């Protein structure tokens, strides 16, 4: 390794190390220094922003560190910047509206930052074994975060999520054990070189099911609605935006090991079933958080459709992930601003929002339109690129299903907008909240996140070229 390369690797690794350090600082320092209590969020935020500066533009090369466990390349730099960005936004939301009880704030940020570290390792993992450990480092803290309020729905969500997630992890381990017996090493490059026999295929399918659990593809999505609804909204935003990205990257690596055959057919079915089921189920939802949960499952399906576009498809996925993250974090931030209890607002609760808080309503409708894929918002281009790749590779049937279901999804996204703009508030007195309701209170940092994300989905759509160019450059290093 030459000197500049070593310097780059050291500077890139400083990011995750800094996160771990900050995690410990959040957990331990306030125990010893009283004045630091309550400022864990700021410590975490500062660490994430500093880590972001370390993830600078990578030289055009791929470095394999720790005997190939970590692959540092422009791709990892792109994804790490994405992860850190999501973390920064989630931390901002948590500072403005604390998700955890005061006495658990240290643990909250510790768990959030370790989960972020796990995600960073996961997206840069060079072999399945590392990917699995990173997946656990990502999932275990999120199970606890889902129930950190220790309210009944929260604990129920955490428990369900833990049980189903452990099931998924067990399947992954089984698959990895089988593959370990058959291949000389678990590096993705080695797996690609070997021919897959029936037993290896069984192993791959087990591993794919395990990661499909995390990505929430139907039929592995049962945990999603309950977990999103019961978890603190900040954590739901993290799950939607970040957790999915980790699973998607590993699934893509596994998918691209095969040129055809049963694995592709299974992905075809997974994508089709996910897109259809999730969109139909979302139609019946009344809770905003459950609606967003099903929408997140549906978007996992659209990403799975993009897999079939080959290299162009991967570029589309890399564009899709931040665009989806912006819309979903924004939507959850609005939900957070409006929520009064643990379960989050229902769609009817948005009635008259356009009159009482026009900017919030405007931002929310831009998120909804972006998720639905209305031009010229970023969501439209994301879906467009995702689907054109698959069409060019000859998977027209799958794309037709996806486009039809995408049209269906318009209905439930529009319902939210209709509620905000066209339904009068149920009781004119209810808009001006009496004491106790904080729906008209200042938004603070959460409002900043909403504004930033709304600007993001609009600008990333109108000026999609820079982000797309970055994604294309990163995708070359896959």
């Amino acid at each position: 390794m030459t000197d500049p390369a070593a310097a780059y690797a050291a500077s890139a690794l400083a990011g995750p190390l800094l996160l771990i350090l900050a995690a410990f600082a959040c957990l331990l320092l306030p125990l010893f220094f009283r004045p630091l209590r309550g400022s864990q969020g700021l410590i975490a935020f500062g660490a994430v922003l500093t880590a972001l500066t370390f993830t600078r533009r990578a030289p055009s090369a791929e470095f394999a560190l720790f005997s190939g466990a970590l692959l540092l390349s422009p791709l990892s730099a792109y994804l790490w910047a994405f992860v850190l960005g999501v973390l920064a936004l989630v931390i901002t939301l948590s500072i403005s509206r604390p998700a955890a009880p005061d006495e658990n704030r240290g643990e909250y940020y510790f768990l959030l930052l370790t989960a972020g570290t796990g995600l960073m390792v996961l997206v840069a993992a060079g072999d399945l074994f590392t990917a699995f450990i990173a997946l656990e480092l990502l999932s275990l803290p999120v199970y606890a975060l889902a129930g950190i309020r220790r309210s009944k729905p929260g604990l129920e969500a955490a428990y369900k999520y833990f049980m189903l997630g452990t099931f998924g992890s067990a399947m992954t381990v089984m698959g990895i054990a089988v593959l370990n017996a058959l291949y000389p090493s678990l590096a993705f490059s080695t797996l690609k070189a070997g021919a897959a026999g029936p037993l290896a295929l069984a192993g791959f399918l087990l591993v794919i099911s395990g990661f499909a659990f995390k990505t929430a593809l139907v039929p592995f999505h049962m945990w999603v609605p309950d977990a999103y609804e019961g978890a603190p909204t900040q954590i739901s935003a993290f799950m939607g935006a970040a957790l999915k990205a980790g699973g998607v990257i590993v699934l893509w690596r596994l998918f691209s090991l095969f040129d055809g055959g049963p694995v592709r057919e299974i992905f075809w079915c997974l994508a089709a079933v996910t897109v259809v089921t999730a969109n139909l189920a979302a139609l019946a939802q009344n809770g905003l958080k459950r609606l967003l949960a099903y929408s997140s499952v549906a978007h996992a399906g659209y990403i799975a459709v993009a897999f079939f576009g080959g290299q162009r498809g991967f570029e589309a996925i890399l564009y899709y992930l931040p665009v989806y993250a912006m819309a979903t974090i924004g939507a959850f931030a609005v939900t957070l601003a409006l929520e009064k209890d643990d379960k989050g607002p229902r769609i009817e609760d948005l009635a008259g929002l356009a009159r009482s808080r026009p900017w919030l309503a405007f931002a929310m409708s831009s998120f909804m339109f972006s998720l639905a894929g209305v031009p010229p918002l970023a969501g439209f281009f994301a879906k467009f690129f995702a689907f054109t790749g698959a069409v060019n590779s000859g998977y027209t049937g799958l794309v037709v299903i996806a486009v039809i279901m995408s049209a269906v999804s318009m209905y439930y996204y529009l319902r939210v907008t209709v509620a905000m703009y066209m339904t009068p508030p149920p009781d004119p007195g209810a808009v001006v909240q009496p004491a106790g309701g904080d729906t008209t209170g200042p938004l603070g940092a959460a409002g900043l996140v909403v504004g930033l994300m709304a600007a993001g989905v609009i600008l990333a759509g109108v000026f999609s070229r820079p982000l797309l160019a970055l994604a294309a450059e990163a995708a070359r290093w896959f």
Partner: protein
Amino acid sequence: MILAASIYFFAALAAAATLLMVFQRNPVKAALLMLTALLSTAGLYLAFNAQLLAVLQIILYAGAIMTLFIIALTVTPQAWRDRPSPGRARLVLGLAAAALILAELLKVSAGLRQLALSPGFAETGALALARELFGRFAFQFELLSLVILASIVGAVTLAAKKGG
């Protein structure tokens, strides 16, 4: 000769203990039968010359997991009273599923014989494992320590008294 005998002995013991466990109604007796099954599996590993695996089996399963079972039994008195009556349909379904899995396992184990495993897979032993763990897999090993720490913090956070 003595090796073959011990293999058959431990295998039979494990199978018998497992069967008895399945049909045992008393949870503590079932747990002890499971312990017998786990220990005889460890003996089986020993007979197959996999000493490390045998020791791990005893420490992890017979030690840690069994202790967890017994503690869970002592703190949940409901488990003692909970005696589901097996419906006939459920019994038939269960037996059918068991037969299906047994048939599949026999088929797979027949196929396993002509399977080419990757070289180096058969090597076990504490030294080889330690070399791998602290050499090639040092990064993953360190990462695991973080996983364990995070799960401890998560568990303590969830279990702590509210407002305490």
